[in-house]
């Protein structure tokens, strides 16, 4: 039975209870059957880890966000920078 055939079923309750399981299985089987994809997912996860857990955390803090508590302080600082 094809994925969308389920939507044409007259039993809506069955559709509702099974749809999440079917989506889960769709992704699960998709990921399991990957060949090149596994290597790519490893690259993606390492990349995201470096970006968010290393670069963002230690090197790329929001300059205005970390220096000031309120938007008013931020705007005062930027005006000072623009007009100094």
């Amino acid at each position: 039975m094809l994925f969308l055939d389920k939507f044409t079923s007259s039993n809506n309750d069955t559709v509702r209870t099974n749809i999440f399981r079917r989506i889960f299985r769709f992704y699960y089987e998709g990921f399991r059957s990957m060949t090149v994809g596994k290597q790519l997912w490893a690259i993606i996860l390492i990349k995201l880890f470096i970006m968010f857990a290393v670069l963002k955390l230690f090197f790329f803090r929001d300059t205005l966000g970390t220096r000031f508590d309120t938007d008013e302080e931020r705007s005062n600082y930027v005006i000072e920078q623009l007009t100094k």
Partner: protein
Amino acid sequence: MNEVFDYNLIDWSRGQFALTAIYHWIFVPLTLGLAFIVAIMHTFYYKTGSQAWKKTTKFWMTLFGINFAIGVATGIILEFEFGTNWSNYSWFVGDIFGAPLAVEGIMAFFLESTFIAVMFFGWDKVSKGFHVTASWLTAFGASLSALWILVANAWMQFPTGMHFNPDTARNEMGSFWEVLFSPVAINKFLHTISSAYLLASIFIIGVSAWYLLKGRNVAFARRSIVVAVVFGLITSIYTIVTGDGSARQVAQKQPMKFAAMEGLYRGQEGAGLVAIGLMATNANDPNNENIKDFAFKIEIPNLLSYMAYYDFNAFIPGIKDLMDGNEAQGIPPVTEKIIRGKMAIQALSDYKMARQAGNDSVALQAKQVLDENFKYFGYGYFESDPDRLVPSVPLSFYSFHLMVALGMFFFFLMIIIMVLLFKRRLETSRFWLRVAIWTIPLAYLASQSGWVTAEMGRQPWVIQDLMPTMVAVSQIDAGAVQITFWLFAALFTTLLIAELKIMFKQIHIGPKDGGK
């Protein structure tokens, strides 16, 4: 106003952003273009049910997946940089930049992330109709994501649809539609995505040409080239047309950039287009690295005027006209703009102080002065060194002409490949097959040259006429920027090597059963 800027910090911050953007743009155009070509191939499979088309689709889909996986999220680093290295800019642009990027995030997430999974995992699991629809939605989703980024970029080149709030020091969006449908945004989007589609066509033709040279997967390679060359020819024409429109917008909205792109120092009526030119040191000003004469040039008379204004005799201002002014043409000198810019900056300062002191009448007067002069706000920072208002002429000229020359070459290559293909002589034309392979790096070179023209040509502005790059930068330690520059260089180079290694391996393996 104290015009002392840390140019070491500014240069490293610019270098870091440029490095990130260049690497990001290595991955993006192939994703944008391959998505569409894969969708077309998938449609052929859907219509014919042919296993050959299925294998062809799956092979290019794999290469698309590799490129997508390696490139995905590299653009997020640019957003990190906005908050850290360009905090004054990020604050100043307010929701103008934030709104398109937020829409981009939502669209990218829902369209690309959802349908890309169906596209890859959906073989024999979802209906064929739903599956091919997912391929098309992935392609449209990718291009729509690009739309919002390019709208934000276009606003920086031609700020419109906003008003400046002196209380918050932020620009606030007055009209979303004016920002979205600004002529610069429309042209930029169409030109950028069509060039990305063209790059992907060249990629497929080049890889397929390699198979033909090796005598491997011949039927598959021919099938792939048929789709890519038709798509490539259409998109090469469209790239030329939209490039022409884009250049016209630059001529009208960013005349200094246009003059730099053309190496036009003195304005003239009926200006000629320099088709080929070689710049050399100016005999009258040998120490000026930026102002150079042409040692050699081939010029097409009157064509530049026509390109810019559809009038063979229209006046095109040169760098000198824009700097010194040209009364006859109604062009004010930069000295006047600098005075008005300083008035705007002073008015902002006066307004803030008056508000803090609770003096509403002085605040109102200051706001009036600010509003009247705001369009020259950024010029106020150039009193001590107005020459900085001129972008690098050699870099702008060469990058622009390289892009145009390569764009024309791609168009003719598409015609040649198409003729050879339909005369059934492509497999034996080893010269053109080799040319097709070597055109792949040239497509990337053209694509990057386009961005160099767009971004270096608009210097010193980060927001045209309103905010120069040197004011946009955060006051942080230059050493920290250097460290992250090298970290990015290492990270992106590793990613690029990984991409090339995995992709070459898959190309070497080829399609399943030779794509038969």
